[in-house]
C-alpha cells in the first residue's frame, strides 16, 4: 500500500508542477509571447479587432497634450504613428521621447483609447551630468533639433 501511495504522490506532484509550468508557458504564448505590437504592425492591420491589445513605441516629441483629465499623445516607431488618449495616472518615467507601452482598444476613428500606460526605459544607467554631456555632444555633432533616443 505504501509504495503505491508514494508513486501516486510522485505522479501527482510531477503532473502539478508540469501543469503549472505549462499554464504559464501557454499564457505567455497566448499573445505570441510578444508583449506588444509596433505602430507599423498596427498600420499593416495586424491589430486585433474589438479586443484589447498593447502597442509599444516612443512618445513623439511635442505630442503630449492635456485636456482636463485626459492625456493625448502620439506613439511612434519613427515609421508609423498612432494617436492615443488616456485618463489616469502616468508612471514616473513617462515622457516625450521616451519608450511607452499602452494597452487598450482602437475606436472607430482610429484613436487608441488606453486603459493602461506603462513606461519602458532603456538599459543605460549614468549620472545626470553624463547624460547632459552626451546630449550636448549629439546636438553639436548632428545639428540642433535632432531627435535623441530614437530607439524605443
Amino acid at each position, binding site marked *: 500500500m505504501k509504495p503505491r501511495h*508514494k508513486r501516486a*504522490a*510522485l505522479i*501527482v*506532484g*510531477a503532473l*502539478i*508542477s*508540469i501543469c*503549472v*509550468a505549462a499554464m*504559464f*508557458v501557454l*499564457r*505567455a504564448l497566448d*499573445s505570441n*509571447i*510578444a*508583449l*506588444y*505590437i*509596433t505602430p507599423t504592425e498596427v498600420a499593416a492591420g495586424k491589430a486585433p479587432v474589438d479586443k484589447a491589445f498593447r502597442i*509599444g513605441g516612443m512618445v513623439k516629441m511635442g505630442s503630449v497634450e492635456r485636456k482636463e483629465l485626459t492625456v493625448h499623445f502620439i506613439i511612434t516607431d519613427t515609421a508609423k504613428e498612432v494617436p492615443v488618449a488616456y485618463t489616469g*495616472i*502616468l*508612471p*514616473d*518615467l*513617462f515622457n516625450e521621447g*521616451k519608450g511607452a*507601452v499602452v494597452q487598450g482598444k482602437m475606436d472607430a476613428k482610429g484613436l487608441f483609447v488606453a486603459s*493602461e*500606460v*506603462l*513606461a*519602458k*526605459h*532603456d*538599459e*543605460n*544607467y*549614468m*549620472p*545626470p551630468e*553624463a*547624460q547632459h554631456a552626451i546630449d550636448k555632444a549629439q546636438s553639436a555633432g548632428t545639428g540642433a533639433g535632432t531627435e535623441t533616443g530614437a530607439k524605443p
Partner: protein
Amino acid sequence: MTTTNRLSQIFYHYASPATFYPLAGKMIPVFVVLAALFGIAGLWIGLFVAPTDFQQGEGYRIIFVHVPSSWMSMFIYCVMALWAGIGLTMNTRLSSMMAQALAPTGALMAALSLITGALWGKPMWGTWWVWDARLTSELILFFLYIGFIALQASIDDPRRADKAGAILALVGVVNIPIIYFSVTWWNTLHQGASVSLTKAPAMAQTMLWGMLLMALCFWMYSIAVALIRVRAIILERERHTEWVKQLLAGEKHAGA
C-alpha cells in the same frame, strides 16, 4: 592515462561524503566572511558612492539587489542541474546531495528577483507585474525550483528521488537561455542587458562596481548556505554509516 586515473581518484576521494563533510565545515566560515566583506563594500558603493541615475533618480538603486539575485537564480540553476546530471550519470551520492542543497537557495534567489523586480516595476514602469517574456520565464524558473524540491520530497527512496529530480532539473535547463535572451527575442517591457560579454557595460563605473560587488556577495552567500545545507543532508542520508557514528562519538568526546 595515469593522470586521468589520478584525477578520478581525487574526484572520488572528495566526492565521498565522509571526506567532504569536515571539509565543508571548514569552508563555511571562509565564505561567510567573504560574503560579509563583499556585501559591506557593495552596499557602501551602491548606497553612498554611486551617483544618481539620469532617468530613474535614486529608484535605480534597487539594481544592487535585483541584478545579483536574478543572476544567482539562473547561475544556481545551472550548477544544480550540473550536479544532478553528474549524480545521474556517475552515480556519486554527494553530487545529488549538492543539487538538493542548492535548490532552496536558488528558489530564494528567484523569489527575491521577482519581489525586487515588482518593487522596481511599480514606480518606474507603472505596474507591479506584466506577462512579459522576461518576467514570465523568471516565474517559471521559480516554479521549476519548487517543482524540483516537491518532487524530491515526494519520493521516499533517496536514490529514486535523485533520479527523478535530475531529469526535471535537466529538462528545465532549457528555460535559462529563454530567460537570458527573452529581452532580445521578443518585444518586452523589461529592458535589455546593461552588462553582457559582447558589449561594453551601459553603466557608470561606480554603479557597475557596486553591482558586481553585490553579485559577489550573493554568490559567496549562496555557497555558504548551500554548504551548511549539504552537511545537514549528508547527516540525514548517511546516518546509518560507520563514519557518521564515529564522527558523532568524536564530537561527544570533544564536547565532554
